[in-house]
């Protein structure tokens, strides 16, 4: 059986010669996703959850069906536990404002790892500032490992909330979320998991992970931009106040007040992104057609090839573990004496798209003393030829910058 050419499924990869290896920033979209979104507008566009006419009912059905697909995707117990948001950032802010502000007190601790993306850090800085709780950092080893001692000291009887990225967007390492969650739960803390970098690459089961809340963005798993997910355990969501108030999140409103809608709509104020949800459902179906086993194997092979190529180059240093299986497709690196913005400019001239800078994880880079890096991140649709072209381009950077080698 010949292998399916996944690149055929992506219009942008067909029309564009660019070597796109900035997938950790956002993924390309398969045709089925683009069509699902446009089909919603062409065939089913009405405001969901409001009208009683067939078109609105159809829009509602598409939207709520997407919720069921997400529920199955992350193996949540109930569709009431799936809240649609714009993205991971909004999901995490929802938890910070609606949960943390109402549950944290002076003397409590919020535990976060030093490798968090700013999206899973700034909301907790805000919550700590407002409530008087203390933000406590779990510092990792250079390869991303969190030692037993770090976990034992950092997650303790004062911990009321643990916020942890499932996969680091710089190191690519997979954090031991279940182990951390078990320890946090033993002290009665709730566990918030940022799955933005893991959801596109590995199977997630929220209950197996021990997540009380889990957030991810659609766009990184090939869905449209502007649709994201917050999973929350039903009993926690049930007693939380709404994050945003307004249309469609109410049961009844009087001059004096309002009673709020049931879950999950309590947290979905205003007109929702139903077309985006349809696109997200299509993206999940696309992933499930391929299967995470295939996705993981392909991405591991590409990552290993890139790391092997880069590790042979003098003056090039890979950030994080030496083992490709600890990178989840993410390879951040530095080149001696060349600023990452210049690296990415030179790679761009060779038609290669990478990210350069602090990757919204400044505390981690400051802690690792690297400040700025260039990051390549691979998806299953990338090819060995693309990896090789990338390595060749990196190999030539110092010469182009006048260093004569």
């Amino acid at each position, binding site marked *: 059986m010949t292998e399916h050419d996944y690149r055929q499924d992506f219009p942008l990869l067909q029309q564009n010669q660019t070597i796109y290896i900035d997938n950790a920033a956002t993924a390309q979209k398969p045709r089925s996703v683009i069509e699902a979104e446009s089909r919603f507008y062409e065939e089913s566009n009405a405001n969901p959850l409001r009208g009683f006419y067939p078109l609105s009912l159809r829009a509602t059905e598409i939207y709520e069906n997407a919720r069921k697909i997400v529920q199955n995707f992350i193996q949540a117990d109930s569709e009431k536990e799936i809240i649609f948001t714009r993205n991971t950032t909004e999901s995490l802010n929802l938890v910070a404002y609606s949960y943390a502000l109402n549950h944290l007190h002076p003397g409590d601790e919020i535990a976060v790892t030093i490798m968090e993306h700013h999206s899973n850090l700034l909301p907790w800085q805000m919550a700590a500032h407002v409530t008087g709780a203390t933000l406590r950092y779990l510092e990792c080893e250079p390869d991303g490992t969190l030692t037993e001692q770090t976990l034992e000291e950092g997650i303790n009887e004062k911990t009321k909330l643990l916020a942890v990225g499932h996969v680091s967007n710089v190191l690519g390492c997979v954090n031991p979320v279940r182990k951390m969650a078990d320890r946090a739960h033993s002290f009665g803390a709730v566990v918030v998991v940022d799955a933005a970098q893991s959801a596109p690459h590995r199977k997630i089961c929220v209950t197996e992970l021990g997540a009380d809340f889990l957030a991810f963005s659609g766009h990184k798993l090939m869905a449209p931009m502007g649709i994201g997910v917050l999973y929350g355990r039903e009993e926690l969501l049930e007693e939380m106040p709404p994050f945003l108030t307004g249309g469609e999140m109410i049961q009844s409103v009087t001059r004096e007040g309002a009673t709020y809608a049931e879950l999950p709509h309590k947290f979905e104020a205003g007109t929702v992104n139903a077309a985006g949800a349809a696109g997200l459902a299509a993206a999940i179906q696309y992933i499930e057609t391929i299967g995470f086993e295939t996705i993981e194997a392909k991405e591991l092979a590409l990552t290993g090839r890139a790391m092997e190529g880069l590790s042979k180059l003098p003056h090039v240093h890979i950030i994080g573990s030496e083992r490709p299986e600890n990178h989840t497709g993410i390879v951040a690196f530095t080149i001696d004496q060349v*600023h990452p*913005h210049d690296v990415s*400019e030179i790679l761009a001239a060779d*038609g290669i798209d990478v990210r350069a800078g602090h990757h919204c994880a400044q505390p981690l880079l400051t802690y690792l003393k690297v400040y700025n890096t260039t990051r390549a991140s691979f998806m299953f649709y990338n090819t060995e030829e693309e990896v090789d072209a990338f390595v060749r381009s990196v190999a030539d950077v110092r010469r182009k910058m*006048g260093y004569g080698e």
Partner: protein
Amino acid sequence: MENRSFYNEILTEHNIRPEYKHDLPDANIVLEGVNPNCGDDIWLKLKVEDGVIQDGAFIGDGCAISQASADIMLGMIIGKKEEEAKRLGELFLKMIQGDATEDEIGELEEASALKDISHMPARVKCAVLGWHTLDEALKKHQ
């Protein structure tokens, strides 16, 4: 591709072997310039007497464009009157915006090595950091 040759010899030389990247203990104007988005960071140090830039230097970190541009700038403005330095800054900005004439670009001497930045919108801030900091520093001085 258009910017394949962008990192030309003038630029890489000023980046690798800058002439004015050092401290200036007797500076009487010192100002930091930062591009928060990309982390380019310079401290511009000037010694200005009687309206003339007697000496100048910078220290800092950042991409080759920001560092080379600041170095080239200092080579052009040292020994010049404040007004002349400001005029060159305006010319430089005009070139970066793609509005300068050939003659004007010629007047910018080595700084004209950066003229292709006008096709690279993401890097404009890097190229103008030195000049922008100079403008602020001279304003502060007056």
